[in-house]
């Protein structure tokens, strides 16, 4: 009988041990939260490890909305050591929540002033920018007999009704970037009026910013409002798309970094922050991104429309970050319901 009891205790302790093995902690490395494209992560970590082989990077990658939500959810009990490559407006929001460890990395003076937090020491630093653009599938356009659009205004032409996709600003960083840029380009009233007319042409709103372009690449919609970087990638893969830079100007958003307050590995986090704005890092970003934080480094990127850089609007990030909640609520009230008939 005692033997049986022993058996039970043994089994239970083995179970407990097994269970505990599922809970793994990691020390001596950095947990890095990011929204950088998955295909670039390995390259980034490898390039960083060329200079700092002793710091291991553990990526936590997801789309902008999800990473932002995660960070805010974990506010009182942070899991991340540092953010590397997340939308600037998200970081401004988090700065106002007091979530960052202010630190001006070495070489910050070489950055374009737009690409750093104005405070001293800086709470966040920008590394590169992604720029809005429209992906247009030439095969599908020809099939429908459509003319190519050249401006935002063109997208509201009645002939495109039901043939345009764009990201939902409530779930996508790119979607919010589009909406906030239209409000700046056309003014508050003009912007909403433009979106009212655009809404009539929208086939569907997607949850992610890259999806409209990938759908345009696959012919699922002829026109996808997305960002230039994604379009260039799809074009490189052989998709029959043109990347249109609307003539009124395009919104953009920077990808930025910040050290999380309360990290238990501040030294390594600072080392990484220093490195992410080095010239070597900027050249690394430039492989895919046409706009980087350090002026004079960027070379033209293949398949990027050359007109893009000149079309970037003077983006008022303060406006975007402060009014984010109100803009999203207004957008949802106007467009995020099926009750309105789609024409």
């Amino acid at each position, binding site marked *: *009988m005692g033997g*049986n009891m022993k058996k039970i205790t043994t089994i239970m302790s083995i*179970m407990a041990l097994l*269970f505990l093995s*599922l*809970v*793994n902690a990691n020390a001596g490395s950095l*947990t890095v939260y990011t929204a950088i*494209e*998955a*295909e670039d992560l*390995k390259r980034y970590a490898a390039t960083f490890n060329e200079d700092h082989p002793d710091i291991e990077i*553990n*990526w*936590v*990658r*997801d*789309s902008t*909305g*999800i990473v*932002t*939500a995660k960070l*805010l*959810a*974990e506010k*009182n*009990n942070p*899991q991340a050591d540092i953010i590397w490559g997340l939308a600037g407006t998200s970081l401004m929001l988090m700065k106002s929540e007091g979530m960052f460890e202010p630190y001006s990395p070495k070489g910050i003076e070489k950055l374009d002033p737009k690409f750093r937090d104005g405070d001293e020491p800086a709470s966040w630093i920008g590394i590169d920018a992604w720029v809005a653009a429209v992906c247009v599938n030439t*095969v599908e356009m020809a099939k429908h007999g459509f003319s190519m659009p050249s401006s935002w205004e063109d997208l509201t032409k009645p002939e495109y009704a039901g043939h345009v996709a764009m990201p*939902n600003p*409530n*779930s*996508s960083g790119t979607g919010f970037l589009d909406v906030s840029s239209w409000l700046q380009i056309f003014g508050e009233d003009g912007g909403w009026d433009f979106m009212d007319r655009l809404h009539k042409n929208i*086939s*569907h*709103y*997607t*949850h*992610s910013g*890259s*999806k409209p*372009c*990938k*759908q345009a690449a*696959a*012919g*699922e*919609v002829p026109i996808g409002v997305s960002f230039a970087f994604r379009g260039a990638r799809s074009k490189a*893969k*052989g*998709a*029959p798309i043109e990347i249109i830079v609307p003539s009124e100007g395009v919104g953009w958003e920077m990808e930025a970094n910040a050290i999380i307050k309360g990290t238990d590995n501040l030294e390594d986090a600072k080392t990484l922050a220093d490195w992410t704005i080095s010239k070597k890092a900027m050249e690394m970003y430039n492989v895919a991104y046409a706009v980087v934080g350090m002026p004079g480094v960027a070379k033209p990127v293949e398949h990027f429309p050359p007109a893009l850089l000149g079309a970037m609007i003077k983006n008022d990030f303060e406006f975007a970050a402060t009014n984010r909640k109100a803009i*999203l609520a207004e957008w*949802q*009230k106007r467009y*995020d*319901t*099926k*009750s309105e008939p*789609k024409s």
Partner: protein
Amino acid sequence: MKKSRDDYLTIFFISIIGIYILIALAFPMYAILSKSVENKDGVFIGFENYQSYFSNPALVYSIYNSLFISIITMVITISLAFVFAYALTKSCMVGKGIFRSIAMIPILVPSLLSGISLIYLFGKQGIFRDLMMGYDIYGPIGIIIAEVFYTFPHALLIIITALSIGDARLYEAAKVLRSKSIRTFFTVTLPSAKYGVISAAFVVFTLVITDFGIPKVIGGQFNVLAVDVYKQVIGQQNFEMGAVVSVVLIFPALLAFVVDRIVQRKQVAILTSRSVVHEPNKNKKFDLIMLIYCSVISVFILTIIGMCLYASLVTFWPYNLSLSLDNYQFDLMDGGGWDSYYNSIRLGCYTAFFGTIVVFTGAYFVEKSRSVKTGRSILHLLSMMPMAIPGMVLGLAYIFFFNHPDNPLNFLYGTMAILVICTITHFYTVSHLTALTSLKQIDNEFEHVSSSLKQPFYKTFFRVTVPISLPAIFEIGIYFFVNAMTTVSAVVFLYSSKTNLASVAVLNMDDAGDIAPAAAMGMMIFYTNAAVRIVYVLVTKKILVKFQKWRTKTV
């Protein structure tokens, strides 16, 4: 009465499992309820969040949409599944085994895979896009077709069981009385299957209203409650509003659950010990019609899966149709790469292992122990609760509860362990019921005898109960594994970079527009689950022969 050592042990084990369920279910649910009446800084604000929810027409409209698709899907699925089940139980058509296996396929894949398949079939570049006659697959039409595919096997299993218990003596009586077959159907078949059909209807309703993957993938602008939770939390970082929508989502699910329980209570005395199992008679015309019907349904199911298989192999749909394995290079896509696939297998194994032990032990004490009556009924009640909680709500509740800085279990957050706990809890009830059914078949005399022989109960448990119940134990293990592989809703808020999952990867790859790789990952889940099922059938055949010999009559 003096308590024996057995009693103390029983109390001990019931408490352990009770505490587990409290931690894994009750406390998190309390956390989400309290979150819904707090503002961003955690201050109690009463029903203010609910007020702002109900004053937002876009959000409230989702309630109608959710109810609409749930009810339509319920009607379609139950009708289709009833005829299918009828063919399997009451006809003499050929190929019943194959039809049954095909009908089970949807259980082996994540729900959203059917949505992806429909895009390839009926989307703007779909093979059969002309069949849509100008209608858009993105929206209620797509959601309902995909949900029917997803819920079909769940309804079918319940209705088959219900139809199988029809008493042959009633059919004989009907025949003697020269009742027409239509009349027999309405007076004998339908009444005896009534409770099963009602139960299946509620299961389908709950599955649809709480499903998040399908509307996310193919819903277009058609908002439903489950997607709203996701959008509030992920898109707007509005956790309080996410909690509010969750509470709203619990109501219909809870209602369906309660009504179903009440209905089930009435179904007791249909199958008595004197019942005789009904064997169908041959009827050429009827059998042929049923054969055609089942073939049509099977073709539909195989088309959905076949389309995904094909799409996952096409290099660049629709402009480069050459076949390649490009889409299986998950490491180049969002969603965590091949690691997420291996993580899913780990999650499946852990969930099957720990889940089966917890559930079976819990069910054993509920059914077999003779002491602590109140404790047992509380445990049973707690075991039934997970059924009424939508997976997403559970996941969100886990964030609130486990990531609270003051929670001593905080270290679980972001680990594989929390995914295992969440998945076990999410699928607890069905496993609990399977275990109970199996345990009820074992005569309580075993316990009485061993107790009068002064044997501790755990000896009986290991020597009698477990070997006899092996089929049910394996069944529960497989159920946990398959569901851990396919679930999205329960884990979508809980995975971390080290615990990315294949099912979530399908969602995220589709979200990023990488729809072909999403189909490919979905197919990997399908291959794995199908292989596990096949191995299970082969292995159990061998093992069970050894342990289950007593079931077959010896001459």
